[in-house]
């Protein structure tokens, strides 16, 4: 079948639109990458340069030394991994309770959780949460960065929705075989939910890695800071004019989430949409 002229025109229009749009969305990254390889004199040359005259990694080395970037990367990795792990454990367990059991107070407990769904805890509660942390003596510790975020309604509902699609007959069969509740959970439910759990893990990790306000206020010592706070420290720090170094540092901070996205794009997007559009 031959395409009509009208379709061809549309095709060209779409193609051009997409090129322009992706150019604008990605331009800041191109400039940042380019800048991260420039010498200070090049950064401030006029007219501004769009490409570095040579590729060297000096700015990256300076960025790592400027703030304790190595330690911050470690902190962020630790915090993001453990919050993710915590959310997956608490979320799957709670979802299992809601999907497979009938018990007294189920509706009330469900609503209790439901209410928290649209409350960004780390921001609305920031002040009382901070006071709680200082009462617990958790300021400047990993506990403060991890524990408050190890449970979430979103994860629970996402897993619950998936668990409910698993045929009831599997549960009956497990019961007849004499499996305990936890055996059924670990040997049937969790293995059957691989992609959902993996997807949630990615989204939770990216979210935790990108957290800013809470780490900013609950940590004061440099060696407890996370990378997002590091970005601010680089910009407001002494070399605040050396944009080559700042862009190098910024890219280092963005790198883990960028790698996850480029490698696991489809799973990432699918899970994001699944967790967003609940029944």
């Amino acid at each position: 079948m031959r395409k009509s002229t009208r379709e061809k025109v549309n095709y060209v229009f779409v193609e051009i639109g997409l090129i322009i749009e992706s150019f604008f969305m990605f331009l800041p990254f191109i400039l940042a990458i380019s800048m991260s390889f420039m010498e200070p004199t090049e950064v401030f040359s006029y007219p501004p340069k769009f490409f570095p005259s040579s590729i060297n990694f000096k700015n990256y080395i300076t960025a790592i030394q400027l703030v304790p970037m190595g330690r911050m990367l470690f902190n962020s990795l630790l915090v993001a991994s453990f919050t993710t792990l915590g959310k997956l454990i608490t979320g799957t367990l709670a979802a299992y309770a809601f999907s497979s059991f009938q018990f007294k107070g189920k509706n009330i407990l469900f609503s209790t959780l439901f209410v928290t769904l649209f409350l960004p805890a780390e921001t609305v509660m920031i002040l009382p949460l901070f006071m709680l942390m200082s009462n617990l003596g958790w300021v400047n510790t990993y506990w403060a960065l991890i524990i408050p975020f190890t449970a979430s309604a979103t994860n629970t509902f996402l897993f619950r929705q998936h668990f409910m699609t698993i045929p009831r007959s599997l549960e009956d069969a497990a019961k007849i075989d004499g499996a305990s509740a936890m055996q059924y959970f670990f040997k049937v439910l969790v293995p059957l939910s691989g992609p959902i759990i993996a997807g949630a893990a990615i989204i939770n990790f990216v979210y935790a890695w990108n957290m800013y306000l809470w780490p900013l206020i609950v940590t004061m010592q440099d060696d407890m800071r996370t990378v997002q706070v590091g970005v601010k420290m680089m910009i407001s720090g002494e070399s605040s004019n050396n944009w080559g170094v700042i862009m190098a540092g910024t890219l280092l901070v963005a790198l883990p989430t960028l790698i996850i996205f480029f490698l696991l794009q489809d799973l990432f997007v699918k899970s994001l949409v699944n967790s967003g559009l609940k029944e």
Partner: protein
Amino acid sequence: MKWGKYTPYLLLAPTLIIIALFIYWPAINSFLMSFYKISPFGNKKIYAGLDNYIKLFENEAYWDALKITIIYIVTTVIIVIILGYLIAQLLDNKVFGVRIYRTLIFVPYVISFTIGGALWTFMLNPVAGHVNYILSRITGESINWLNQVPYALISVIVASVWKMLPFSIIFYLAGLQSISESIIESSLIDGANVWQRMWKIKFPILSPITFYLVIMNITNGMFESFGIIDIMTRGGPLGSTTTLIYKLYQDAFFFQKTSLAAAESVILFIIMSIITFLYFRFGEKRVHYQ
């Protein structure tokens, strides 16, 4: 019986304990604190009734922050929704390289608001930045984007739109791809053109997604945008980018106005509750579109 009576409670315990301790308890505390006058170190408390709220609403800076928040959120959300919908239409076509475009367009979503802020702070830099260079080549003038009154807020809005746009595109694209072929085909038979199909057929079908996106973008604009503002303008110049969340942060952690900040938390909490209520009251009903 192995599937004991208490099993569900044990399964729920970790989640409920954490949520009770770190969401409910602080929320209640915040509410209580807002009715007291508290010394900066929290060691003295006097009951003050509604004093904190009255003080807050008599303070012009707080009204300004409210106004700025509304301008910021309304502008950002409208642009993000319209552009997001249009770009999703483009991505819904099978054209050459669409996968690459999709990847590039989605990238700002995975970075933090902080990093987004850093990238734009650089591009808008009056000396080394590229935006001013291009602007001055075209108009002969350059603007001190982050330090001049209307421009600082405009800069923050532009950066936020750039950062938040992919989220809307992702959801619209998923929605567009789930619309059944038969609906589109029948509209073609009826002679609807591209524009009519886009706004009179697809857009109403996707209204639950639009509703969800409006709510999520308001939430993001209210809270997550803290990062972008803190990096780009720190609420300035002259408080022209101080939103409610930024004001809360300043009052709580710079000026140590604990009880006032508690009242601010409660107000944010109430605003969020209203939005959440609206979502479940009007949004949920329209979700069943398939």
